[in-house]
């Protein structure tokens, strides 16, 4: 079991824990992200990274940051789950990459970059994964409209006689 006071002793007291239904979450700041996750993997046994995702808080009442990046961790031997939430703000939305800890983070971080524009330093190959390479916006941000800005129909037409 991960004990909050132990983590606070090691990494500072600004770690906040909360519970909702059966989820256990800790909110940390980006400066202690990599040491904390390394410690969670090596000392507390969270050997699987279940998911790495982000949320854009632009249209949420009472939000303090622009983005949150969420790491969902799982300890396979004890079945314990933990969510680690990190706030990220523009203009420099950069976090350290956890590719070295969990290889599964490779594509998850690429997807967060593609969809939100949050880059990860230390990632070996950070490029777009779901959108085409030439696409220049970040679709899952709240200021990008659902139907896009005309990119989806920007193609030449082939007619019957011309094919």
């Amino acid at each position, binding site marked *: 079991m991960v004990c909050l006071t132990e983590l606070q002793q090691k990494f500072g007291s600004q770690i906040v824990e909360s519970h909702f*239904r*059966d989820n256990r979450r800790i909110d940390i700041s980006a400066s202690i992200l990599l040491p904390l996750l390394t410690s969670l993997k090596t000392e507390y046994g969270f050997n699987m990274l*279940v*998911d790495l*995702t982000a*949320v854009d808080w632009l249209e949420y009442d009472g939000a303090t940051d622009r983005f949150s990046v969420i790491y969902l961790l799982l300890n396979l031997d004890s079945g314990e789950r933990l969510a680690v939430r990190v706030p990220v703000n523009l203009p420099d939305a950069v976090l350290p990459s956890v590719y070295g800890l969990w*290889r599964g983070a490779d*594509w998850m971080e690429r997807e967060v970059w593609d969809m939100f524009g949050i880059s990860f330093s230390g990632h070996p190959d950070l490029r777009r994964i779901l959108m085409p390479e030439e696409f220049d916006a970040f679709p899952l941000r709240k200021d990008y409209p*659902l139907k896009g800005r005309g990119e989806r129909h920007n193609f030449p037409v082939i007619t019957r006689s011309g094919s």
Partner: protein
Amino acid sequence: MTDGRVPAGVSDGLLVWPLSMPLTPVDTLETPSAEREYVWTLNFGPQHPATHTTLRLVLTLDGERVLNAVPYIGYLHSGFEKLGEHLDFNQYVTIVDRMNYLSPLANEIAWHHAVEKLLGIELTPRCKYLRTILAELMRMHDHLLNLGTTALDLGGFTAFLYFFQQREHIYDIVELASGQRFHTSYTRVGGVLFDVNTDWINRVRKFIREFPKVYDEVDRLLTKNRIFVDRTKGIGYLSRDEVINFSAVGPVARASGVERDLRRDEPYLAYADLDFDVICSRGGDCYARYLVRMQELLESLKIIEQAVENIPGGPVNIGVESDMVLPSKPSVYRSIEGLIQHFEVIMPNRGYEVPREQIYAATESPNGELGFYIVGNAETRAYRARTRPPSFIHFSMFPHMIRNHQLSDVVAVLGSINIIAAELDR
């Protein structure tokens, strides 16, 4: 195949592999050297015969041997997660259906499991058993197609036809329950769309009686078939450490020795009352994954049998006083309370109260742990609906699995990790 990537020697999928295989670096492209100057590139494009739809691989080959494989995805990215921010919980279930389209009801059950956890709803016992039966039918549905297309890609057309006929029977069962054979949109917040009757139960019993015969036929066709075994044994090996590090789940992980099944470890719906085994193997290759899926078909049959015999009576939806489910049509048309309750649920400026909280909840879909991370914002739409897609994460392991295999093994490995493009790209 004995080139250092896979342990040499005979395996039957159940021997103990050396668990200390080191992780090999993935992304070094071998440059042509004097001994190996004939290195060429093949585009296994987004349109290809291996029936796994739109994914693209750029293979670097030395003759027939794959040196490197770079996957390109996104050819089916349709903006599912963006749609989740604009659609109601009960409307988004139609979109979630279309993610892992081999087992649509499994996605719906996973979605509403997460939504109901966010809302703090406890389902009725009958609904739990009904959803369990449908989830296991969908597990069989997915495995039948995966095994059928694995056989098809390796040249065994007969298994494909036999398994597709069984899938048609499952389509009939699902159509009898929900009205639609494929994308059912059957679950709702707090329950399901329609209840089922004894006719449906008898149909399920008939299917349970007749399935084992077909299973035996295909088992005899494939499991000890020399060609099939030669094409899948030793191919695409993954060790237990690699599987955990790559975040793989489901049959892919269980075939490499990770004993993790959410139905047993974090029981949801009616799984706590039912007796079943978790199928694991230590083989780690395509043959082991095939064996795990075949055996899971029989385990699902066992679960459905138990659930069908013990399905409780009572209402299938939670009570209408929660303001989350629609009342019955007779009460809507004939009583003022029913009309008001209907009004409260349907009208856009009304609806029920959703906590402004975030939650992650997962179920064991046929492909592994399908989880949803939902952020609620006090209205009946999610603020963020993230899917944790097993296929996406499994496909990232592909370059690692395919090194130093032959070109014809690409198809076998792609089939064994069950990549579904809609879940891959969302």
